[in-house]
Structures are given as C-alpha cells and as structure tokens.
C-alpha cells in the first residue's frame, strides 16, 4: 500500500476512470494544459486529449450546465470547480438541473455528473474565497454529497461517484491536497453512503467530516492522554444522505455527542446531526449534544481574526470537557 498525497489520489481516480470508460471526461478551469490548480488532473490532457480533458472558460454556471447536459446522453463528466466559492454561480444548474431532472422527468432522465470542488478556509483568502458550502448542497434533494477526509477516501469516493447514476458533489478542501495517506494499490471503490469510525471510544462521540475529522482525532488523543476520556471519532464522509444509523449507533454507545464543523453553526452539518440525535436517541444522552462551529461572520483577512473564527483542536478539547464537568467523570 502506497503513501500518496490527496491530489495524487484524485488524479489516479481520474486516470483509472478515464481509461476504463471513453465517456468519462474532465472539465474545469485550468485543468487541461495547466494540469489543474491542485494538480488533480496533471498529465491527463496529454494522455486523453482536449476533447476529454477540457479547459473551460471562466463561466461556472455555463460549463457546469454543459457538463450536466452531456451527462443526459451518458457522458460522465468530472467537473472541477476551482474553488467552492465559485460554485455559488453554478447553483442554478447544479440544483435546478442536475438534482431535479430525474424526479421531474418521472425517472426518465438522469444526470450522472460529478462536481468536485475545494471548500474551506485556507490561509487569509478573505471572505469571498473561504466559503464552506457543504451545508448548502447537503440540503438539496437528488444530489449526493460526499467529503473525503483522506487520500484513500478522495480516491475511492471519486471512483464510485463517477460510476453512480446520481449527480454527486464532492466537497474537497484547499488545505488537504498535500496531505499524505495510504491508498490501496489495487482498485477500490468507497461507499457513497454511511460513516466510518475513525477511532473507537466509549465516553463521547466526536463527529467530524473532511478536515474536522483530523481535529477530532487530535482532540481525542489529548482527551485520552490528559483527561482519561476515551472519545470515539465518527467520520461523516457522506453528508447527503447522512448516516442516521451510524450516528445513532455511536451515540447509543457513548451517550455524549460533539459535532465539529468548519462551517458556521446555523443550518449546517451540526444542526442536522443534532436533530437526528434528538429525534432518534435523545434518551441515550447523558449530556446535551453540542456543536463546535465557526463564528457566523464573513471570513476576515487578518490572520488573528481569521484564526478566531475557525475552530481548532484546542477548542474541540475544551468544549468536549464541558460535557463531563457536571457528570460522572
């Protein structure tokens, strides 16, 4: 099993799927000749040519709609939207066309399109380049949303997304493309639904997705070493549909829940997971569930301001400890 980077995993999935099916294409801004802002399509232009690895104009709604239209004929486009902030411009085609066409055609027409895009706050990119849009997409019926936390998931989720007949939005992260991790050498397809226990524990469940899984894992180490608390970390790699059973299973075991998200709290992953917990396993709880979320402000440019808006490992630890102060520990 090789240790490769997140971007290499995505590139490998592109390459294998394009080799497997001549109707798989890649499209997006600077993905062809330039090889992609995050190198996710590096070398593929030379290998598959300009008809299949397509540099688009800077017209997000336009080229996303073109990809969706092509998917109606059985083409399987992997569309890269360079930054999730630009996906706001493509919402009309993603939501009104891709996500609804199966339903409003009574099941006749499908849109097997994959839209990949990095979200998240990186380093001082300011308010218009730091969006976290998973909360927007996960509320859209007819659109699958997955978000890889590791190179293994980035590879396997893209592979399955290309083959699945539903439109899939893959929420990547600006800061994760150079993260290293193990990816099996043999071909592998990751489930598009479910969740994964990234660390088993008994005292509290820390729910994370994408980058916040890593904050949760680090926080769990600290909680174990310094506080004797064994936290379970659940990786919610699928945001739509959410893994209701997996959430309930873990909370029923640990009886405490913390949801850690890089996005602002209102109307997000945290509120949704909390709703599931309240609906499905309220009486399993030993303490009220809590969210660790970003502050609800446009992301500021200045470093200390940016830092205070986004949660970190320290905050996860501190907030988690509040669940235990009045309790059994």
């Amino acid at each position: 099993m090789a240790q490769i980077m997140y971007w290499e995993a995505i590139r490998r999935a592109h390459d294998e799927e394009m080799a497997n099916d001549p109707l798989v294409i890649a499209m997006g801004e600077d993905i062809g000749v330039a090889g992609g802002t995050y190198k996710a399509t590096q070398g593929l232009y030379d290998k598959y040519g300009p008809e299949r690895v397509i540099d688009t104009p800077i017209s997000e709604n336009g080229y996303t709609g073109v990809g969706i239209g092509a998917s109606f004929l059985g083409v399987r486009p992997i569309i890269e939207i360079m930054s999730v902030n630009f996906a706001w411009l493509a919402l009309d085609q993603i939501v009104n066309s891709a996500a609804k066409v199966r339903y409003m055609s009574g099941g006749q027409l499908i849109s097997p399109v994959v839209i990949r895009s990095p979200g998240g706050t990186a380093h001082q990119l300011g308010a218009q380049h730091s969006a976290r849009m998973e909360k927007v997409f996960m509320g859209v019926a007819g659109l699958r949303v997955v978000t890889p936390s590791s190179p293994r998931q980035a590879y396997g989720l893209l592979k399955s997304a290309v083959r699945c007949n539903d439109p899939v939005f893959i929420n990547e992260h600006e800061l994760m493309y150079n993260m290293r991790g193990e990816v099996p050498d043999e071909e592998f397809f990751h489930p598009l639904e479910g969740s994964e226990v990234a660390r088993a524990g008994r005292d509290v469940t820390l729910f994370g997705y994408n980058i916040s899984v890593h904050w949760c894992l680090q926080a769990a180490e600290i909680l174990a070493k310094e506080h004797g608390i064994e936290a379970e970390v659940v990786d919610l790699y699928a945001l739509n549909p959410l893994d209701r059973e997996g959430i309930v299973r873990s909370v029923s075991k640990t009886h405490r829940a913390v949801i850690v998200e890089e996005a602002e709290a209102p109307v997000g992953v945290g509120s949704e997971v909390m709703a599931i917990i309240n609906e499905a396993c309220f009486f399993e709880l030993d303490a009220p569930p809590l969210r660790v979320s970003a502050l609800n402000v446009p992301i500021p440019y200045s470093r200390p301001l940016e830092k205070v808006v986004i949660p970190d490992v320290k905050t996860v630890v501190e907030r988690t400890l509040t669940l235990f102060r009045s309790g059994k520990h």
Partner: protein
Amino acid sequence: MNVRPGHLPRNEQRSDYRPLSIADKKRLLHEMLFARRFEERCYEAYVERKIGGFLHLYSGQEACAYGVLEAARPGHDYVITGYRDHIHAIKCGSDPKAVMAELYGKESGVSRGRGGSMHIFDVPVRFMGGYALVGGPFPLAAGIAKGIKMKGGDEISICFLGDAANNQGTFHEALNIAKVWELPVLFVCENNLYGIGTRINRSTAVMEQYKRAAAYDIPAAQADGQDIEAVHKAASVAVDRVRSGKGPYFLELKTYRYRGHSMSDSNAYRSKDEEKQWLKRDPINILRNRLVDDKALSLDDFKAMDREIIDQIENEIIKFAEDSPLPVASDVEKYVLADGDPWVFPGRKG
C-alpha cells in the same frame, strides 16, 4: 418599435432546398390547428381547475416549433426548451394523451405526473425536457451537443427559447462555449416581443436578436415566425449547417403569443391594437389561406378538420387524462435518487 415580420436580413439559401409540398402543408396545417386546439383546451381545463400550477400556452407561435422541427428529424434530433413546452414535445412525437395527462397530474402523464406543464419530458422521442428557469436550457443544449459529438452521432441539439432568455448569463456563457468547442447545436429564439410582461424595447438593448449571436461569431438568421414556409426554409439552412459539423447556429423567429405569459397574467401590458395587428398574421390562417388560394383545400375541408380535431381532443385526449389514475402517495420518494445503484455500496455488489 417597428416590428417587421418577414424581414430577412442575411439569410443564406440552400441550393438543394426542397420546399414543402401541398401534402406537407396540409399535414402541417392539421398539426398546427391541433396544437392551437390542444392549448386552448388546456386553457379551459385550467379555468375549470383541472390543471394546476403555472400554464404557459403556445397559441400564436405554432409555426416556430412546427417549421423548425419539420426541417429537422423529430424523434432523432435532441430537443430542449423552456416552460412553454407542450407543443414542442408533441411535434417530437410525444403522445398528446400523455402530455394532457401530465397536465392533469396523472401517473399516465409523460413525466408520471412529477413534472407538470413546465416539465414535460419524453426521452424515448428525445424530447429532453421543459425547464422553468429562464435561460436554463442554453448550457444543457450545448452539453447535449457535446454528448452527440463524443458519441459520434449525426443528431443535432435544438434549443428553443424566448427572446427574454437572451438576457440571462447562460445565453452568453453557452453561446461562447458552443462556438469555442464547435458544438452541433441550433439555438432557436422565438421572439414574441415580451419577457413575461415587459416589452422587449424596455428590457433589451438590441431589438433584433439574431444580431446578438455575432458577439460569439455564430452565424445567425432571422425569419418570419408566423409563416411556416419561411420558418421551414430558414430552418433547413440552419439544420443542415449544424448537422454538417460547422458548429452552432442561431435562428431568430419573429412571433407573437396570443395568451398571457402564463395563466396568471392579466395581459394588461399590451394594446388591443397590437394584438389585432398580430391576429391578422395568424400562422394557421396564413397557411390555410395559401392552401385555399392554391385550391388544395376548401374552407369546408378546414372546418371539418377543425371539428374532427376538437372531437379527438375531447373524446380521446381529455377523456384519457380524466380517466387516468393519480399517482399514489406512497410513491412520492421514487425518482429522487437511483434506486439500488450498485456503486452506492460497492462492497455489497452482486
């Protein structure tokens, strides 16, 4: 604004153009009259509250859909449009009974009652749908053309939209992409002079819509959308050019809708005089009068045709829609996502 239907600024001619025969014209007269009666019957059903939601009727614009698609290969070429979509689907080959049943929200509807008037879909006849966001189909049409190109077929993609859609960003984005990638797509602009209730001269900088394609170096023409022979002739050039691999084409048809934008429209923004002027150029009357002048049809023949159509709509189409079962509530979550797609849980496969 001085509207000059029939003004043809730069139309090319096809040397091998085969004009419509008398038999073609008689059939098309029947088809257009059917479309008119179908739409007017929808109006009644809407007033009776048999049809819900929004309803956008095509009356007055018939020569556009019939003229263009007569020059293309309905059922073979891919067609996509906006929400004024019943008649385009029917010309592609949809069963009018299933279209009416859709408007009635029935399971036997062409989109199983999930779409409604604005979302007629009939994939077997390559009618790729009616979409309700103005301008939404432009990129989809270009994408369908990209799909055709990749699969190597001889189909073309035809996108019918109104003049007001040209003020959306999707118009510019899709025309630009269609030209850069040389896609086999024909954009048909049915210029009926109104974007909902705002007249074109109050919303749009350029009155002649065909001129706007020049911004993307796409060849364009304009034709009288009330004269099916003029539409057919212009569309033959357009279709032939697109099918021969020369890239996209833009065809503007000058037309007029008799009903409001939708049924919720007071129609108060138009003068009676303007409506009267356009009624004089009714596409059905123009074709009928020509056939009568050519002694190919009598007015009695026409009246008999009309009666037969009205009877057919009442006795077959409305009856089918009325008698069809409604969808069952327990099926409401069907068609959201692929049912049992093996790639959702690949490990559990097979």
